[in-house]
Every structure is written in structure tokens, then in C-alpha cells.
């Protein structure tokens, strides 16, 4: 333990805990959300019943409004921790358009010099984007859950029907993030280890 405290951890323990609780909650929200979506699909697609959580509308809703409390608590804890600990400032703060273009160019050519515990400009952008997407998802979710009691929130998203479509669109955005995220984890499995076990951040170049 002591030898690790001398060095910065790639992902501090609270981040690792909140990451996995959040990941499980988001996936449960997807699967139960699909059961709800299937009751009245707005797009020419439905989700296979076996892939949904709950299988039918009522059970999907029961899961959705149960897990939402987990996501809500985990998300609030993460936002508080990220702000107070300096995680957002140190790791997610944008580093300027030049760094972004450079790192994006590298990433698109699959030059991915990953160092544990360090966030390049593309990572900063993507993680910030997915955090914002999840925030919008929670807010649109609240607005379609309570379009009368929280009418101001529903109005903010253009009224009930539009808020519902934004809620659906955000789901696809988060899935797109997840696809990139999981692809990169598959390319660099040690990042998965560092999100589970205490792992020392790699040194500066």
C-alpha cells in the first residue's frame, strides 16, 4: 500500500468504484429502456425481447425507475468527487484545439500512445461528452417522467414529445461512445486492469 501512495494511482479507488456502479446502472437503464421503447417504437426498429430487462412494459418501467436512483446517486457522487478532487480539472479540462487536432489525427491513424493515468485531448473530449450526454439523459428522463410537475424542464427540451426523442437520441450517442470505449479497451487490455485494481499512473514523457 505504501509503495502506491508515493505515486499517483492511474484511477483512484473512488473513481473505480463509481465507474463500475455507473457502468452497471447505465447498462440496466439501456436494457430496461429498450423494454419501454418496444411498447411504442418511434423508429422502424424494436429491440429483441431477450436483450431487454423486464421483457414487457411494466417490468421495464419497474427496472428503469429502480435503477435510476442508483444512476442518480452514483452520478451525483461522481460529479461532486470530480469537482472537489480536481479530477475534472486535471484530467478532463480541454487542452486547446491544436492538441485536439494532433491527438485526433493520431487516433484516426491508430497511433495510440496510451499512458495509464494520462488523458489525451481526444479522451478528454469524449469523456466530457459522455458525462454531458448522461446528464442530459437524466434531465430528459426526469422531464418525460414528470412533464406536468416538472413542466419547466420539459419546456427546456421543447416539450414532452421532443424531450422523449432527445432521450432516445442520447441513448444512441452513449452507445456510440460505448462502442469506441470498448474497442479501445480491447486494444489496450491493461486499461481494464487499471480500472479494476490499483495501478500506478505511468510517468511523464
Amino acid at each position, binding site marked *: 500500500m505504501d509503495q502506491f501512495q508515493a505515486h499517483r494511482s492511474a484511477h483512484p479507488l473512488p473513481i473505480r468504484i463509481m465507474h463500475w456502479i455507473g457502468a*452497471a446502472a447505465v*447498462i*440496466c437503464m439501456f*436494457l430496461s429502456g429498450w423494454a*419501454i*421503447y418496444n*411498447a*411504442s417504437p*418511434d423508429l422502424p426498429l424494436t429491440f429483441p425481447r*431477450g*436483450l*431487454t*430487462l*423486464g*421483457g*414487457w*412494459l*411494466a*417490468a421495464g*418501467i*419497474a*427496472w428503469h*425507475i*429502480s435503477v435510476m*436512483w442508483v444512476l442518480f446517486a452514483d452520478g451525483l457522487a461522481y460529479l461532486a468527487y470530480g469537482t472537489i478532487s480536481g479530477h475534472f480539472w486535471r484530467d478532463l479540462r480541454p487542452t486547446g484545439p491544436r492538441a485536439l487536432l494532433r491527438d485526433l489525427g493520431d487516433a484516426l491513424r491508430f497511433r495510440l500512445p496510451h499512458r495509464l493515468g494520462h488523458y489525451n485531448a481526444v479522451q478528454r473530449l469524449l469523456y466530457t461528452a459522455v458525462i454531458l450526454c448522461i446528464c442530459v439523459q437524466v434531465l430528459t428522463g426526469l422531464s*418525460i*417522467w*414528470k*412533464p*406536468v*410537475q416538472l*413542466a419547466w424542464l420539459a419546456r427546456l427540451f421543447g416539450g*414532452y*414529445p421532443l424531450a*422523449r426523442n432527445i432521450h432516445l437520441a442520447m441513448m444512441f450517442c452513449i452507445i456510440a461512445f460505448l462502442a469506441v470505449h470498448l474497442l479501445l479497451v480491447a486494444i489496450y487490455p491493461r486499461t481494464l486492469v487499471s480500472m479494476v485494481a490499483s495501478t500506478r499512473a505511468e510517468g511523464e514523457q
Partner: protein
Amino acid sequence: MIRRRQVPPSVSLAEIAPEVAKLTRRRLLRHGLSLGSLALLTGCDLSTHSGVDAALWAMLRFDDRVQAALFNPQRLAETYAASAITRPFRFNAYYPVWETRMVPDDWGLAVTGLVADKTPWTVDRLRGLPQQAQITRHICIEGWSQIGQWSGVPLHLFLRHVGADLRARYVAFTCFDNYSTSIDMASALHPQTILALDFEQQPLTPEWGAPVRLRIPVKLGFKSAKNLESIAVTNTYPGGFWENQGYDWFSGV
């Protein structure tokens, strides 16, 4: 989304409540937990199905309490201009439109439970009470919504008129098409909750809930029961057709 359950008539819900509870739990269990994928994806412990099932029901009850706390009895649902009315208006029931029930010849609206005056009501008598019109959004639990126009007797006026105990917890509705639902007293007394007699300024036809239906814009659509047959004021949880199968009871919007 059509699902029907046979409930023998002439048996009161109270008599069969424990069996209904068991049945509905089993139903949520069967529908809700037939998923091996969850265990793989989330690591949730599904070793005891009944445990997860009970947890879901407990969360639904918790959610009901949160919703009741969020409910502001003064806040009005948004109203719309006549030009915003959805046309054609979508028919919805737990059965298809061709199964719509005609109004029985001897129809009267019964009022039971904690009320002073239990005289059944005719449509003419209901029309004798003050009327209120509204153009509001009907939001289905399935997610779709549409804007419709209804008018009728505000339920709070009706309940006061029959001398209902306004401190009672529930107002329950049963329908001659075998549907049923129930709402909390605070929502029943909301100024926009009406016993609707007209749809788009015409007396209700059978498919829109003739001769009288509930129209409650602060709840999801399945609470706006059509084809009413009786109204009961009670402190005993009445449940409802969908609620007994797992739709969240409060379902406020």
C-alpha cells in the same frame, strides 16, 4: 399491447386480494425475470427470483411515495389551443376498437364507499352540475401522447356534492367493460380532474368512453378510465386492471 385477465364477477376484490397479489407477483416474475442475459451483464444476484421480484415491487411502492411527494395539487397541466388537437385521435383500450362495449340499457353511475349520498347518477343529472372544458395532453404509459378535448363535471365538485369523505385515501373506478383503476385523493381533487361527458364537444360515443369517463391530465392515460360504472371512495387500496399486473400505481405525470 393487449392483455386480458379473467376476474370472476360478483367476488369483491377484498376477498381475493391475497390471491391477486400472488398472481400478479408471479406475473411480474414471469415477465420480468425471464432473462439470463442480465446476470451476465450486470452481475446481479438472480439466484432467488422472488427476492429480485419483491425488490422491484418495493421500489415501485417507494416510487409511488416519491411521486406523491412531488405532486403539487395546485399545478395545472398545460392547456392547448383547439388547433393543436390531434386528429385523428388514437383509440386505445385493453381490447381492440371492434370490441367496444355498448352502454347497458339500465346504466346508472353508482357511488359507493365513504360517501353520504349513494343515489346512482344518470347522465342528465351529471349534466345538471357545473361543467368544465379542457384541451390537454393525454400521455400514454407506452410513451406516445396526443392532445384531446374533453368536458364534464370536475370530480372535486362531484365528490363534494355526494358528501364524500375527502380525507379518504383512494378514489376507485370500475367500468362496465371490466376495466378498473384507482387514484389518490389529492389527484382526484385536482382542478383539472373531470368526469368527462363530452369528447370534442360531442357527447361521448362508446369508443371514447360513453356515457361518462374519467379524464385526469395529471396522470398517465391508463388512469383516465372509460365507460364508468361506479365510483368508490375508500381507505382500502383498490389497485386496478393494469396496476395489479405491475403498472406503477401512482403514475402521475
